[in-house]
């Protein structure tokens, strides 16, 4: 639309998204040598997607599984490459949006329990968790509860003993509820920074049941046409992350209280995308 408008990066309203948005923004500023607008921390999948389609933002990070189920209403396959190909095709034809190559990490669901319980009961995996004597008090987010490849699939794969119905709550409150003892197992995300804390452990998904949530940037074709360097710049970020990298980045902000801008800049420096402090 407006030619003079700077490129605008969006993100959803949780930390990982904000970090990815900030990383992309700094990287693009550097590579394109122009100011980049940040609309980070927007309301959620619905709003960010609509804002992108509407042209209010030009790009944002998304997860393949989310796009497939929430936006495209597909039943996603368990194969990461299939899912990616599917969303890529559909986004291109339906929305004229370009799905870039994955960043390299998979933020899928992860069942987390207190370290103390794990040690007491001697559990490391979801298979072990099937033999909890009195049953788990499960805390979950809305999406995990709703998605057919979320909670229902989990319970089909693992005969987890449950105490009462799962408690559904805001993602941000899950770890608190776990620490507080309101629940004994939570369906968190596999890249949560809290997972580096010594108090909790992520149970291993031995049977590989969780859906694919490979993160990647999506951008508007129109913007890429206007600023072709955008494509190559975004492509630089692909494959630069791992589950562990992302967890550590989250942890640096969440637990060590690093500033998002600094954590993002530090990541760009150490990953070789940016050498030395930025200069005009």
């Amino acid at each position: 639309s407006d030619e003079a408008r700077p490129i605008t990066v969006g993100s959803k309203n949780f930390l990982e998204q904000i970090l990815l948005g900030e990383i992309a923004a700094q990287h693009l500023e550097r590579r394109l040598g122009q100011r980049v607008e940040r609309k980070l921390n927007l309301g959620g999948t619905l709003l960010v997607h609509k804002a992108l389609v509407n042209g209010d933002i030009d790009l944002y990070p998304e997860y393949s599984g989310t796009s497939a189920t929430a936006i495209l209403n597909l039943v996603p396959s368990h194969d990461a490459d299939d899912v990616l190909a599917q969303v890529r095709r559909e986004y291109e034809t339906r929305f004229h949006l370009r799905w870039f190559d994955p960043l390299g990490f998979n933020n899928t669901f992860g069942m987390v329990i207190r370290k103390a319980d794990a040690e007491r009961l001697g559990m490391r995996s979801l298979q072990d968790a099937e033999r909890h004597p009195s049953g788990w008090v499960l805390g979950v987010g809305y999406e995990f509860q709703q998605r057919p490849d979320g909670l229902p699939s989990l319970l089909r794969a693992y005969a987890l003993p449950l105490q009462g119905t799962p408690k559904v709550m805001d993602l941000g409150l899950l770890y608190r509820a776990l620490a507080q003892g309101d629940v004994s197992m939570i369906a968190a995300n596999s890249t949560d920074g809290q997972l580096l804390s010594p108090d909790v452990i992520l149970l291993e998904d031995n049977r590989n049941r969780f859906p694919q949530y490979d993160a990647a940037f999506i951008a508007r074709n129109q913007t890429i046409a206007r600023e072709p360097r955008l494509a190559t710049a975004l492509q630089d970020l692909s494959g630069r992350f791992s589950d562990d990298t992302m967890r550590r980045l989250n942890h640096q902000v969440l637990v060590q209280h690093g500033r998002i801008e600094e954590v993002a800049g530090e990541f760009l420096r150490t990953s070789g995308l940016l050498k030395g402090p930025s200069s005009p």
Partner: protein
Amino acid sequence: MIPNSLLHELVTLTMQHFFLVGVSMLLAASVAIPLGIILSWRSGWRDVALEVVNVVQTVPSLALFGFLIPVPVLGGIGSHTAIIALVLYALLPMLHNTVTGILNVDVAVRDSATALGMTTGERMWQVELPLAAPTILAGVRIATVTTIGTATIAAAIGAGGLGVFIFRGLATVDSVLLLAGAIPAALMAIAADRGLEWVERALSRY
């Protein structure tokens, strides 16, 4: 069109929602109306109390929950925490309208109650409250309808209610779910408002 399991859940969540709102309104009214009455006598306390309530109104719900979860008895995950939050948010309109309603009662009528030898309490019950009732009930109606809307935040703390559909609908961009949460809430708001209007008519001749 709507699957059966959804219908079943709808009924459960609507009832939870109704329960959350109902309990919160009863608690809020039984705090705010008597407090409003007391504050109508004491202009000194009035400003302080209304300011506290104003401040409470601006506290974001998730921050409030984060603060309440570790609190021993009241807090934790579940409906009691949600109810506390809803009560706190409902105080402002009820308190404000109670104070305004009572201060607006005609001075001549109030004086005549005093002259007849009514105690402060008798005058309150028999004269001031009935005459302030339209304004007080306007506050209750505002609070109830607003709470039916804000009670969706109960879902954020595992207290159920129609917010479960709404947040799930938002997370999965599912407009059927969104509507399954929003429409019953809207109908409940209309029904509650109508019900309170009926109470108002029944209570006073005006």
